[in-house]
């Protein structure tokens, strides 16, 4: 699955077998879901949604600026 990190514009690949909850994927990346908004295939989704390997995620930090 392709994951775009909005804060450093880095695109990373995360291997997903079957389906996984976004919350788990983020936690494994060391990301607190509380601090981010997730866009899955161009739509805002909750951390409880599931993803599969063909999905695309964008992770947007809630805090920006100063």
């Amino acid at each position, binding site marked *: 699955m392709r994951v775009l990190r909005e804060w450093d514009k880095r695109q990373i690949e995360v291997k997903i077998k079957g389906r996984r909850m976004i919350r788990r994927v983020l936690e494994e990346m060391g990301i*607190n879901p*509380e601090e981010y908004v997730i866009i899955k295939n161009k739509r*805002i*989704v909750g951390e409880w*949604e599931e993803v599969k390997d063909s999905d695309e995620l964008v992770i947007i930090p809630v*805090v920006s*600026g*100063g």
Partner: protein
Amino acid sequence: MVKCSCGKRAIIYVKVKGKYMCEDCFLRYFERTALNTIRRHKLIDKRDKIAVGVSGGKDSLALLYFLNEHFDNEIFGIFINEGIKGYREITSKDLRKYCKRFGVECYEFSFKEEIGMTLDEMVKRGRLKPCSYCGVFRRYLLNKKARGLGATKLAMAHNLDDEAQTILMNLFTNDVKRFMRLGYMTGIKTHPKFVPRIKPFRLLYEKEVLVYGLLKGIRVTYIQCPYAEQAYRVRIAHVLWKLERKYPLLKYNVVKVFDPKLRELKERAKDEELRECKICGEVTNRDICKACEFKRELKIPIS
């Protein structure tokens, strides 16, 4: 699939309501909360001319959009360019783009022209942290320029997260005077030179403001102020994020539990006099305002 009570797919969990919500129900909740805040605390009067403090960030653009959509008052933005290399050039680009899209006028002022020095220069010369200079001069200019442009209210996009952070910062530093900057409308006494500041998003989480903006097509370039990591606020914010995850509604409770205390503090400070700075004539609660004090320290000629 987690569903909203209306049956559609939920996109966000709204903690204050204890409900999962779809796009439409969330937008209704968000706007209703901000409108209720405005109504309940009499933040906007029909005759008000509203200046919105804008930075080009998601919060202030969401506020500008929201106010412009819901109120017939004259509304315009005030942008203060502090002079932070590699940062403000980017946010100001976003700001101009969205102001044009919303059809809202935005007035720009800079530290360099108005104060005589950019923030980057101040940081090199001064002994204080960047946020100290930035906060004081930004507040000073926002008030002065809002008044100069005829505004009767200055709307700020402070959200629930900001407010909870400020409460804790002031508590940890035992700074009672700064508590007066808190609340839905700041200021205790009126003064002809002081433009009251209003915070329509005070009861909305920062995450909700971001989601609202995204749903309304506001997607700004992600960028962090290069000085942010030095800020006390950012450290408090990190702690609060972790705690909020463990104890949902923690930030909301910090703000809510503090509100009656704030009313008490403001009541007690009612006799405190607002006066004009002996040097620049701007409104202050001291003989010489903080901006002039900082200018002296930075050896900026005071006019």
